[in-house]
């Protein structure tokens, strides 16, 4: 009897630990999402739109999950340094220039990235700011 009780308490504790850990990472992601949304409104929404719909052929949409997934390691560089490379999304070519945002910190870039890659039909989960720091070192 005593054994069973101890056993139950032990496993309950383990479960609680795991559960609280998940909770913490969920909270972290929620933090990224809400800050990311504010940053998106300030820096991105003018061109890419409230729902990531883009603007004609002037600004590409952010609703194409394939491009965002395939180029995930490049996203930080594009957000921070802008780009004038032509890109093709959903079979449509975009040749406009995207401006740079040099005043964004790595954490800002990570937050806005998490917001974009988990909104507008995207669902790619968390992206840590340390990964952004590493990505930014490999910018062309």
């Amino acid at each position, binding site marked *: 009897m005593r054994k069973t009780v101890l056993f139950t308490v032990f496993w309950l504790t383990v479960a609680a630990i795991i559960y609280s850990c998940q909770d913490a990472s969920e909270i972290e992601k929620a933090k990224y999402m809400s800050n990311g949304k504010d940053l998106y409104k300030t820096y991105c929404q*003018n061109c890419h*739109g409230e729902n990531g719909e883009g603007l004609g*052929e002037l600004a590409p949409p952010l609703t194409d999950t394939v491009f965002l997934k395939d180029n995930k390691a490049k996203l930080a560089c594009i957000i921070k340094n802008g780009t004038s490379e032509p890109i093709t999304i959903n079979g449509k070519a975009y040749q406009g*220039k995207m401006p740079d945002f040099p005043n964004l910190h790595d954490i800002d870039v990570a937050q806005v990235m998490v917001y974009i890659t988990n909104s507008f039909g995207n669902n790619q989960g968390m992206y840590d700011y340390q990964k952004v720091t590493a990505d930014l070192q490999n910018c062309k």
Partner: protein
Amino acid sequence: MIKFKNIAIAGFSVVFALGLVACNNNKKLPFYGQREAKIVKDAAGVEKVDTVYQTIPDFKLLNQDSVMITQDQFKNKVYVADFFFTSCTTICPTMHRNLKTVYEAYKDNPEVAFLSHTIDFKYDKPSVLKKYAEKLGVDTQKWTFVYGSKDEIYHLAEHNYLVAVQEDSTAKDGYIHQGWLVLVDKHKRMRGAYDGTKTEEVEKLKKDIATLLAEKE
């Protein structure tokens, strides 16, 4: 008994107010800018006071096809004018995203037109404007983009359309300007100005265009 009387009065007032609202279908938009009084003589030779409103003066500007256009293009049309530049990354994309919804709403109405002036006299040559229009996805017969010298455009903006524009080397894109969408009637008079970055004001513009088109001369 008193209660009943009150209710009757209240009910009557509501019906009366509704009646007034219903009658008021010849709504008019306000007039913007300076105005002056002019004494005119009518056919019988009686002197009368007439109001002269500020109008947009004649202009000659190059459109996106490098063709000189004048106000003849807007004869018998109401039009929406604004000031922007193609490399602007701040308010212009939002302004044009919103204005495009107005364009879509009045696309098939030949009495409505759109006129965007670039304030970037260095870079936004007609060919650049043409490319911009194509990318925005609008018909330039309906929504015209014009290029002019700094003096012409800035004078038009500040003195005629009453929109502040300025070169500013400290601004991110090199220029600062206001995002007004100015509504001009068939007699070149300004009848409204709407903040192009705010969707609710742009919705009002849509309604006001309809009101303006329905106005009796």
